[in-house]
């Protein structure tokens, strides 16, 4: 197992639950999944990293790219990342200032609130 992406549609958003390791090997899978959501006109995508046990700068890069891509399509990206060891990697790269790292999917406000 490297990276699995499970798609779970909610009322006003789509949650992509990632399981595995988000590195150079896993990156294409996530990139693909986000491209598909943007192409389908999805406005609010939530990346749930709860079950990701490793992320490196390649993985962070895909998350940055996902945000850019969705914004280009007038959408928004939220990131769920409760695990301190993973949060630390975002922080080391100052990306905690780009993304709010939510503790759980339920804590993510709806798109209207965030806008």
């Amino acid at each position, binding site marked *: 197992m490297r990276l699995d992406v499970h798609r779970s549609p909610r009322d006003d958003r789509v949650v992509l639950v990632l399981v595995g*390791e988000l590195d150079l090997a896993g990156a294409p899978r996530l990139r693909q999944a986000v491209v598909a959501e943007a192409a389908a006109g999805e406005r609010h995508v939530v990346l749930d990293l709860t079950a990701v046990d490793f992320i490196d*700068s*390649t993985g962070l*890069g895909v998350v940055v790219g996902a945000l850019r891509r969705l914004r280009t399509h007038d959408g928004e990206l939220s990131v769920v990342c409760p695990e301190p060891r993973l949060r630390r990697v975002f922080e080391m790269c100052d990306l905690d200032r*780009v993304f709010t790292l939510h503790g759980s999917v339920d804590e993510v406000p709806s798109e209207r609130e965030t806008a």
Partner: protein
Amino acid sequence: MELVVPARAEYLQLVRAIVGATAGLEPSMDPGRVADLRLVVSEAVSNAIKAQASVGVADPILVRCEPSGDRIVVEVADHGPGFDAGSVPDLPPVETAERLDHESGLGVSLMRRLADEAVVESGPNGTVVRLTLGSRGR
């Protein structure tokens, strides 16, 4: 300990597992520090894989890992085109919109920040990155 692995992304996970397990043989290594080590090794090996791919070189990547009591030294060697580690450009500040145009460019600075010492020897025949991590967090 020396490891010769195919220059393919599927092997990154294995390299991290091996380097982590080797570090785990040192009882003094802090678990958080092992996590740092897994991260910087992943960065270095990813760069080695990408560097070789950019010039179509299929050689395996060499990873050396020497724990020695209070520190661990990891060396990653590739036969890529080489680069000037001193002139890797900084990314735009995180506050700016341009920052989002950059999906890459964090690896070298992460290695520098997390390792106690990061030495890059690079030339037209390839690159050796030598990272030294002390057993406790910085």
